[in-house]
């Protein structure tokens, strides 16, 4: 054993040496190239005014704000579209998956057809297709669809009435909401192993406390709440919130593509549940849908969760396709506009990569914890 360990160390030493030499070579190249272009590596450009506006944003932003704030706006947009797409894709995916298991051949084969078509065409192509469909299919601002009072749907997007917070610093609300969500997450994690009742009560209590704190804080800092309804003035709408067609197209595109993969997952997992379960359900007089809902799906769920989470990760990564239709998510804002204007390629790419690596790590850690919890409790 001693001699073996010695041999390993020698080979490890060689590997590390080669790695060090290659890294040094690359870094020297980078330094030389940067010098030739007159650029340095620094993040101070993030404080400079951006000089461009972000067409859709969840926080206050103008072209006088910094690149850093633009990046934050992009990040929030990424989170927004990813969350929307994740929820929609899950619902659609489970629906499609159940359709693929239906005894009705028309339904089953149609679902198969849809899933196969979506799976075998490129995602960016589908995205562009939805975008063109939306742009061509929606009317102009003057002839908007008006399904409800104060709601307008046209080629510029979906206009909805909104709450407006008039306060010196809109960030307090954002911070309060983030705080509430964080506390809720902590409550859930802390009571992970506790019985259901305790968990529910603890999270409810914390949520109420956080919500109350946010309201009190907001009231204390002199904020007021008012509603704002969109109105057509001249050529455009004033007031309310505008959900741009790029967001809608990206949301639909991401959701539909992912839902076909989730449908396959669901179908595979339900088929992996032993056939005896289905037969037992039939013997007890359950209909196909009842046995699916009460017996097979619950058992299939634990097989579904890990690949489902990796689909969620894929959705988040695919949100970077927003660059193809100019939806201002983080890749478009930092990797596109900011990089073009400042030329700081390394810093911009580093910011984006760090974000996605952090996301990947976080999700992996949670998944490992989940897998260990499942394994310790045993199957089902």
């Amino acid at each position, binding site marked *: 054993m001693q001699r073996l360990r010695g041999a390993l160390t020698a080979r490890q030493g060689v590997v590390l040496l080669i790695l060090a030499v290659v890294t040094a070579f690359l870094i020297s190249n980078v330094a030389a190239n940067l010098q030739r272009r007159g650029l340095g590596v620094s993040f101070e450009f993030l404080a400079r005014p951006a000089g461009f506006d972000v067409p859709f944003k969840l926080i206050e932003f103008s072209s006088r704000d910094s690149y850093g704030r633009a990046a934050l706006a992009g990040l929030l947009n990424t989170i927004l579209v990813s969350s929307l797409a994740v929820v929609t894709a899950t619902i659609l995916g489970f629906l499609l998956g159940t359709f693929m298991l239906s005894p009705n051949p028309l339904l089953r084969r149609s679902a198969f057809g849809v899933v196969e078509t979506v799976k075998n*065409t490129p995602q960016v192509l589908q995205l562009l297709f939805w975008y063109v469909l939306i742009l061509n299919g929606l009317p102009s601002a003057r002839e908007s669809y008006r399904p409800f009072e104060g709601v307008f749907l046209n080629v510029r997007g979906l206009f909805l009435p909104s709450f407006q917070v008039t306060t010196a610093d809109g960030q307090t609300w954002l911070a309060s909401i983030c705080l509430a969500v964080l506390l809720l997450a902590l409550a859930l994690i802390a009571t992970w192993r506790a019985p259901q009742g305790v968990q529910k009560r603890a999270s409810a209590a914390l949520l109420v406390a956080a919500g109350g704190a946010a309201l009190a804080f907001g009231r204390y800092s002199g904020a007021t709440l008012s509603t704002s309804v969109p109105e057509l003035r001249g050529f455009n709408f004033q007031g309310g919130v505008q959900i741009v067609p790029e967001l809608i197209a990206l949301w639909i595109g991401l959701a539909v593509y992912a839902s076909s993969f989730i449908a396959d997952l669901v179908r595979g997992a339900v088929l992996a549940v032993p056939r005896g379960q289905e037969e037992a359900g039939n013997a007890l007089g359950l209909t196909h849908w009842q046995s699916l809902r009460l017996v097979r799906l619950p058992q299939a769920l634990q097989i579904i969760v890990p690949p489902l989470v990796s689909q969620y990760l894929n959705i988040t990564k695919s949100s970077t396709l927003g660059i193809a239709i100019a939806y201002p998510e983080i890749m478009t804002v930092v990797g596109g506009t900011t990089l073009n204007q400042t030329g700081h390629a390394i810093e911009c790419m580093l910011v984006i*990569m760090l974000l996605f690596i952090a996301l990947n790590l976080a999700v992996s850690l949670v998944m490992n914890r989940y897998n260990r919890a499942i394994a310790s409790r045993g199957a089902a």
Partner: protein
Amino acid sequence: MSDATGPPRPGLQDRLVDFGKALFGSPLNAAITLVMLLLFMAVVPAFYRWAVGLGVLWGPDRKACVEGGACWVFLRIRIYDLMYGSYPPNQIWRVNVAGALLVLLMLGAFLRFNPWRNAGVVLLALVYPILGLGLISGGFLGLPVVEARNWGGLMLNIVIAFIVVVGAVPLGLLLAEARRAKDGVLRTLATGFIELWRAAPLVTVLFMGIYILPLLLPPGFEPNKFASIATALVLFNSAYMAEAIRGGLQAIPAGQFQAADALGFNYLQARLLIIWPQALRMSVPSIVNTAIDLFKDTSLLVIVGLFDMLGAVQQAVKDPQWLGLAIEGYVFVAAVFFVICALLSVMSKSIERELDPARRNGR
């Protein structure tokens, strides 16, 4: 003799009755069938009318197209760009020869029950990459050089996909071996490399290829866009290939390694002669699935300024004569991708069944 081989197979009449029962047996089923039929009647005739009924394929220009019908004239006239990009017209025969050779070799390598199988695999993996690329880029035997920046259309999709597969599989194999190594340092490095690339979105990788890769080369080296992107894609996909091959490696029983040791094989001999042939055969379905995904991802090249088939369509639609015909273009590109990916899928399933005929594929 096997007279009693189980219950009698249902005759045609029985099967029709079963089909009818499945469609209309219960009230819920009948309702579902009705809804599906209504959906079909709403969508299919309208699509047929747009694509075929009013669709125009022949004609000299846009004026031949009818309002409310698909204008396939656009695609017929621009088909050259969509297939070959800006490849010089009088040299296209080279691309066609390379393409035909590829199809032939793939059939030879993957069709079951054919005597040229082993030769096909070796030729496809080792000889064809050099032969095909040489034929397309030229520069020897009197063939004029066609620079990579003139490659475009479907040809570009296939060339990049092929290059990336040929590059990523060996690299992925090495990474998978490194990830399973007993050596902690090597294992950590390999795992870090793989997880890093798997965390990155493809668009980011393409951008890194364009902006970061040139910085990593010694000053004075100006790599062309094609080479940078190909390199970035090879590195990116090698991580996914590594995961696909790792499954195959893990499936090899320890007895194989022990037998190799007992026979006195060293590390390399054991790998080359015993382990890797088995591992690669078992990983083929996963590798082909990764290859299908990577072929679909070549449509993203338009974002970094390489004009593959999708990029060619987008460029063609900007022509004032063909404005607004994006849908026809996208439908065409979708159809081409669908056909190719479906064929590759079928091939992958056939290989999967060949490797494990006992597997039940579910309903």
